[in-house]
């Protein structure tokens, strides 16, 4: 009897540890953040796809096909030692795809609003896009304003100060980037992610609500392999008795 009593707690302890295992390996989880890149375009793009390509693949493709609907890209980054997977939906800038683009606002935690500093019309369109984004998205969505093609200083039509003023006026973060030279590209994405991460820390975003565009990623650990072995341990204990 004594032996039996002595055995049981052991089994129990083993089981609980197995049960708690997924929680204890919480650090293995990573946060997944969904973000969009939006911005107008007529014939020539403002470079959203190029920005994404530069960020995910670290390369520049001067001739890029027109984005049809939406394209997906992802990269793992580290913020404050926390693994974060940034999933970016690169949307088409053309007016005809507007209704498609709208479907993506709700599920995104952040958006990169891109214009082309060498074309004023793209800057002038920002207000419409911003209104669209604000109307269809979560009110907490982090929006970063990006003036792309900063390498083409000679053809600049929109001053940096104007971009800054616009961002200040609408409460956005602002940066000028160049997808070609990769200047500020990394920073633009990471700063957006940082801002979102900060909002998670502050409790503005609920990680358990997937509609915010944030969730806990699947773990890479072989935790599920431990479960059967735990059960096996329990069985052995039972057999001994």
């Amino acid at each position: 009897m004594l032996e039996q009593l002595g055995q049981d707690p052991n089994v129990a302890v083993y089981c609980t540890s197995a049960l708690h295992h997924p929680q204890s390996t919480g650090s293995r989880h990573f946060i997944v953040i969904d973000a969009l890149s939006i911005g107008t375009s007529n014939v020539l793009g403002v470079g959203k796809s190029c920005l994404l390509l530069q960020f995910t693949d670290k390369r520049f493709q001067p001739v890029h096909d027109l984005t049809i609907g939406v394209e997906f890209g992802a990269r793992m980054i580290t913020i404050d030692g926390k693994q974060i997977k940034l999933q970016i939906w690169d949307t088409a800038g053309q007016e005809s795809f507007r209704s498609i683009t709208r479907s993506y606002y709700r599920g995104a935690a952040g958006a990169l609003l891109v214009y082309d500093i060498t074309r004023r019309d793209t800057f002038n369109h920002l207000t419409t896009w911003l209104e669209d984004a604000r109307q269809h998205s979560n009110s907490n969505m982090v929006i970063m304003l990006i003036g792309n093609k900063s390498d083409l200083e000679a053809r600049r039509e929109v001053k940096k100060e104007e971009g800054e003023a616009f961002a200040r006026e609408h409460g956005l973060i602002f940066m000028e980037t160049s997808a070609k030279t990769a200047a500020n590209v990394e920073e633009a994405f990471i700063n957006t992610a940082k801002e979102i991460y900060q909002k998670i820390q502050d409790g503005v975003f609920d990680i358990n609500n997937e509609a915010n565009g944030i969730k806990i990623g699947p773990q890479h650990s072989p935790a599920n392999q431990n479960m059967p072995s735990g059960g096996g341990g329990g069985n052995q204990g039972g057999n001994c008795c």
Partner: protein
Amino acid sequence: MILVLASAVLSPGSSCVINCISKRSDDVSPLQAVVEQLSQQLVHLTAQVEANKNRIDDTQRAVGFTARKKLADVHGLRLYETIVFDDVVYNAGDGYDPETGFFTAPVAGSYVFFLQTMLHNLDEERLFLDITKNGSTLARAHERRCSRSEILNRKQTASSFPTALWDMPRRRMRLPEDTTTRWTTSEIFLELSKAVNNRLVLRRLCHRVQTSSLLEDRRDAVRALKALSKVQNRVVEYSVVLSLSPSVYKFRLEVGTQAMDVLTKVLETDRSDVEITGYALDTLFNVMSNEPSEEDEMTSKSSVDLGEQFTEIFIKKQENVTMLISLLEEYDFHIRWPTVRLLTVLLTNRLKDLQECILVIPMAVSKLMDLLVDSREIIRNDALLLLNQLTKGHANIQKIVAFENAFERILDIIVEEGASDGGIVVEDCLLLLLNLLKNNASNQNFFKEGSYIQRISPFLELGSASAPSKQSGWSAQKVTNIHLILQLVRTLVSPSNPQNQTVACQKVMNQCGLLQQLCSILMASGVPADVLTETINTVSEVIRGNQANQEYFASVLAPSNPPRPAIVVLLMSMVNEKQPFVLRCAVLYCFQSFLYKNEVGQSQIIQTLLPTTADVNTITAGQLLCGGLFSTDSLSNWFAAVALLHAVIGRNTNNRGQLLRVQLATSLGNPPVSLLQQCCNILAQGAKLQTRIGLLMLLCTWMADCPIAVNHFLTNSANVSYLISQVSSSEGDELELIVQGLCAFLLGLCMVFNDNQNSSFTKASLKEVIQNRIGEEVFADKLTQVAKNENYTRAAKKPHLNYKHPSEIVFDHEFTKLFKNLENDVLVAVSGEENSGLKATSRREHENLVENYKEVIKEQDQKLNDMSQRVLELQSKHSAATATIDELRSQVQQLKDQNALLKAQKGSQSSNHLQGTPPGGDNVEKFQKEIQMLRFQVAEKDLQIEQLTTSLTTLEASLASQIGDENKENSPSEAAVLQISINRLNMELKDLRVNCDQKDTEISTLRSQLEGSQQDLLQLQNNSSNSQGFLDSRVTEMTEEIRRLSEEKTSLQERLKKSNEENLKLANKIRVLEEEREAEAEDKRSLNEELETLKKEQDDLLVLLADQDGKINKFKQRLKDLGQVVEEDEEEFDDEEEEMGEEA
């Protein structure tokens, strides 16, 4: 205006009534006349008839009537009203009752009815007149709205009984499916009348829904509508042969056409009431759905159209779809579920239109996705079906659905439903996943990035649970599920996907154990053959072109005894005739994928063929392939040949050379034959077609880019003659043509890759043979035939061997690639001029050259690297050396300085020495030193004195100020102390002065001594420093010269300054002059202007003058005319004088 005329001739008994069902007409008078005329004729005729009848009556009792009715207009008719023909013309036997409109047959027998209608102004619908018998319709005549002339025509061919026309789409009629169920007429009529009743009911219901103000009332009406939408009536058609064909007629059409608007209105207005909304949705569902009932199977094709038409009408209004989507927000089951079903049906009917519709509605996809988390399984499952439809072939919707977290949710459902052991829901889930991923690179990327591949691999686990029931464990559902999972995997790594995507997925699949999982299925027992086949195909695509995965696959061992590599086991089944065909294809595909871009694997396979490593006891891949190559089964031959082909294909020609070494022991006693020769022998013996094609493909690949193989091949002249005979033969069917084309290709390759080692078949001689024996055109024609073959294009499309029947197998994918690359080379080599013939070969040579050069460049690169390294070394050495040199230099400098110092010292010493040589020099030196010392001391003392005096004065000054300021405040003792110290200092000063004086005297004495000795010295110096004097003089000369030069310089500078000044002065002058000139120019301009104005004035004057001249002339003329004589000269003179005056 309507004229209805009915008459009946002797017929069987019972009562007949003519009903007016529907009507519509306006009054029109023009035809009245006609009608009147006709009626008069009619009266006339009936009178005749009556006369005749009377005659007949005499002989037998006759039954019949003729009656007519005149109406002002059709509006006088009510629906389903019995028309009473009140004007009876003739009524034999008194069967017809003009009061009620009923005809009661007084005698049993056959009756024939004639019904004649004359209608006009029928501007709406049609008018139907039924002849009913005991309440059921016997026949119907109808009038269409038509032009007047038609009506007139119609009058002549008056529509008359029996015109049993049923108003419904005729295409819904059909012949009886089985002859045993003969319908009696009464049954048919019963059904018809039911249908008529139902239509009436339907109208009333619609009316009620529209007008009733009570919700309950409306609800009941909609419920009834729902019931009606499912009602089926059997209807019939009289065909030409008068056979009755029963058919099922649903009330969908009626309900659809009449009630759709009513129902959508209900959805809008009565949305708050769950019940009525549910009924309305159900009714719409019944109307739209084309679900074939058991009786309706054959007509389903036509009813598809019906559903599609209704759907089209319904979704034409975007707001209808928007409303349905918004209804999804209602949680109530009775609304949500029918909405889902209705949407699914709509999607099925009009996929593209509705997809676009839904895409435009904001958040529509999100709302549909939310259905997947509904706790009620039935809704969730139907939502899956809905999404399956929605995502069909629409990449953008697929992406949005994926964005809405579809993968996660679907995989959750799959797990919940028991993964691969699950039921049809799992199948639906997997179909949806496939839908989302197929041909959608973005979603595939998302699937990979989201770590969802890792979640698939457990689904393939054939856990131990199913092991005991191996044979029975595979339910049909499980087979389907596994199939779908495998397809899912294949979609992700399909060779048609972008390369980098496929590679990334393959990597993940290996890492997460999916490949291992697949291989374990491969080796498990009891797996159904079709699953096994698909698994092999999947493994093929997972390992294809990925080295790590290929290596893993090579290491997989089958659980046999002794354990054999999986590859060998698979090859065993490939060359085994008894295995299913598709399985053998899959194995070949797997083998190909294993060797694709895998040089290590290729050489390993070749190694097993070589005699050195051949082990008698174990079965190797090489043995199996050789066995297959020479077995009696032509398919095995083909498979083995293609497998070997894949082992030698590629850039690396090494394997092709190795394969030449393979020797075969044919039969006892005979010498071994090389593999190459054996292949040729089989070819020459005229094996089966598939065998020959396989071998030819192998040989072509073997020869390509491998001159040694060509050489081997050409050593046996029989080979060449066989090829020539094949190419030049002109008979044979389509497949035989392929063989001939391949022979031509092989022959061409022998030429292109000929290194002219074989004296009997050099490049040139082969070309000659081809041109003479075959002819260029025939050769080219044969060659180009190959690529034109249907099988060729099929094989070239993709690497997967997707064949259903052994006879379809002809070409290999890789071979088609090779053929495409080299076809042109061969053609050029054979057909072209000497030059162009050489082109192909020379290109090859060029390539060789390039290769050589590349190597040279590589060597040079190497050298360059070495050199640069050496340069670096040397540079570092050099810098070190320069550093040491610098050091040494500085040392040298130091030494030089020291040397100079020493020299100087030496110089001074030597001068001293010179001085020191005469007597008394020592003394002088001593004295000098002493003097110096003393002077030094004096200087020191002076300094001290000075310091003291300064301190004294400062102190005194401070003292004075202190005394001035603070005498009264401070105690006088301090001043006294200061005074004392001053005194003391003064005393010291005095002492020092005394000392100084003493010293001075000493100095003066010493000086006098020194002067004495100096004079001695001067004398000595005069002797020694003659030379020095000379140098001094030169130096002075030089300095003087320098001074002179500098003076000159200064004088020159002064001159320069002066000239500058002069320049300035001159410039000033010039400026002044210029100004003057400008002023002058100004003057000149003004003068010019004046001149011009003057000129103008002059011109004006001249003009005036001319005018005056003219006038004068006129006057003169007048005067002359008047008769006065004028002296012209005088006048002119006067004029001139005047002019002068004016000018002046």
